[in-house]
């Protein structure tokens, strides 16, 4: 499909085609296709169970697709050797939802780990680079603290500093503002915008916070029950005629079509006659 892209259009750094994913017998993603263009902030939204976290795990190459392809920086993840995959991973940064800072290391050691493992820099340079990134996320002077001594917002910012230490081309953020108060959450949004504007990083953010999504997104992808409901700009999303999307924007729960048999079955836990063949 990449041949179809017009030459004037900026290059796609992430291309997902027909991605299908199962968790045990349950189908999580039902043929998701998605392009992320260099330098944009793509926000992936959806309620719980919509498959957005699974999609993110596929983009980070933590899951293998049942079918379909995921290409990062024009490399097909399924065909990469271990070594090439490691090289590719140096070009992506991930800020996990809970921070995922290594609890046995100080904040500084956490941030320097990639440098320590992937580069031959001397310790002084590494420390300077770590402090530089801590300055970017407004955590200067905290490098000697342990992650357990940080507040929730500080952990998220430290995780962001760790994610950008190798100056990645793509930054993934999983729920960057979940569980934070509005002020801190807004500061994190500003940080994401600043990172993109300063170094032209491509950012993929998974969130369910509408406010934050509208503030930072260049384009928004809305996932629902494993399918893409919408891809487009914030303006297009706001004016979208679909009822499902308007329900999501106005935080209305969707009315499910009532199936009396299924309801009875759920309540009693036994098969109702006529449904036994299920």
């Amino acid at each position, binding site marked *: 499909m990449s041949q179809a892209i017009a030459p004037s259009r900026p290059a796609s750094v992430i291309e997902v085609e027909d991605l299908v994913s199962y968790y045990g017998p349950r189908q999580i993603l039902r043929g998701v296709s998605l392009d992320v263009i260099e330098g944009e902030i793509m926000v992936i939204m959806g309620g719980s169970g919509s498959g957005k976290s699974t999609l993110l795990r596929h983009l*980070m*190459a*933590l899951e293998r697709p049942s079918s379909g392809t995921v290409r990062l920086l024009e490399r097909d993840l399924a065909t990469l050797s*271990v*070594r090439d*995959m*490691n*090289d*590719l*991973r*140096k070009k*992506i940064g*991930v800020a*996990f*939802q*809970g921070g*995922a*800072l*290594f*609890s*046995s290391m100080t904040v500084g050691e956490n941030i320097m*780990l*990639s440098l320590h*493992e*992937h580069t031959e820099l001397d310790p002084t340079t590494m420390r300077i680079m770590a402090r530089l990134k801590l300055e970017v996320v407004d955590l200067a002077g905290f490098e000697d603290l342990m992650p357990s001594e940080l507040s929730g917002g500080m952990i998220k910012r430290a995780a962001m500093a760790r994610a950008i230490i190798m100056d990645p081309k793509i930054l*993934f953020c999983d729920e960057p503002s979940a569980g934070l108060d509005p002020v801190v959450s807004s500061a994190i949004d500003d940080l994401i915008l600043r990172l993109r504007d300063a170094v032209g990083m491509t950012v993929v953010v998974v969130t369910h916070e509408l406010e934050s999504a509208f503030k930072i997104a260049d384009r928004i992808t809305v996932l629902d029950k494993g399918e893409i409901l919408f891809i487009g700009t914030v303006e297009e999303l706001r004016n979208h005629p679909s009822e499902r999307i308007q329900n999501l924007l106005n935080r209305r729960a969707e009315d499910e079509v009532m199936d009396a048999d299924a309801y009875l079955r759920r309540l009693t836990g036994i098969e109702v006659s006529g449904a036994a063949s299920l």
Partner: protein
Amino acid sequence: MAEQATENPAARFVERIGRGAVRGIEELGACGMLVFETVYWIVSGRRMRQPVRIDAIFVQMMETGIGAIPIVALMAGTIGVMLAIQGIHTLKIFGAETQVTVGIAFSVVREFAPLITGIIVAGRSGSALAARLGTMKINQEIDALHVMGINPVRFLVAPALVAMMVMVPALTLFSDLVGLLAAGLYVGVDLGISLAAYFDRVIEILSVDDLMHGLGKSALFAVLIAVVSVVNGASVSGGAEGVGKVTTRAVVQSISAIVVTDMIFAFLVTR
């Protein structure tokens, strides 16, 4: 299909056995793969630009080995004295209590020192390893290692395995010495045999083979503890309670594996 099978109690029973067996085989396979992968990273990590770090190995060696010295000394000493007491009591029947040294020397060096060291390391370091990996997995720290291009087996498992393979035999040698010394002191007090005469006799009785029998076994125990703990730790699910469960499971399984392997090893080597 599974739903139909569960209706019949007999079928359900067979199904449960089958599922258990499959799970067991799966776990054994995971253990084998883990050993293979660990050796792979130790051997070719440098070529892949992901060497196993010496400093990480030393940190693990401190935790597994040096930290265990007091408790290993206490246990080995107690077992030495216990063997001396029981030996003298038993041999008194034949009026041969001066021969107690033979029993002590063989049983400490060939059996009790490796066994007690293995059990202590399983309880101390095996549980710590399982709990650490379990917690790291739940906190997405393992995922974080993956996405940073750092192989978790190379970064977390290989140093722990190497450290155990060095430190468990070292601790076993240490508990040999402490066990023999403690038993010698008791024999000296009870039977009036001097410590010098006792150790002369011990050295006369023991061959290098006996020592290697114990040390070889303990190296095997080290691999068992590391692998069982890692496989359990990595299989965690369900939050803090899950971590508690896998930690208990890791300790119980490693101690069982140690005792069973001990018996098989002794049987095969004494053929």
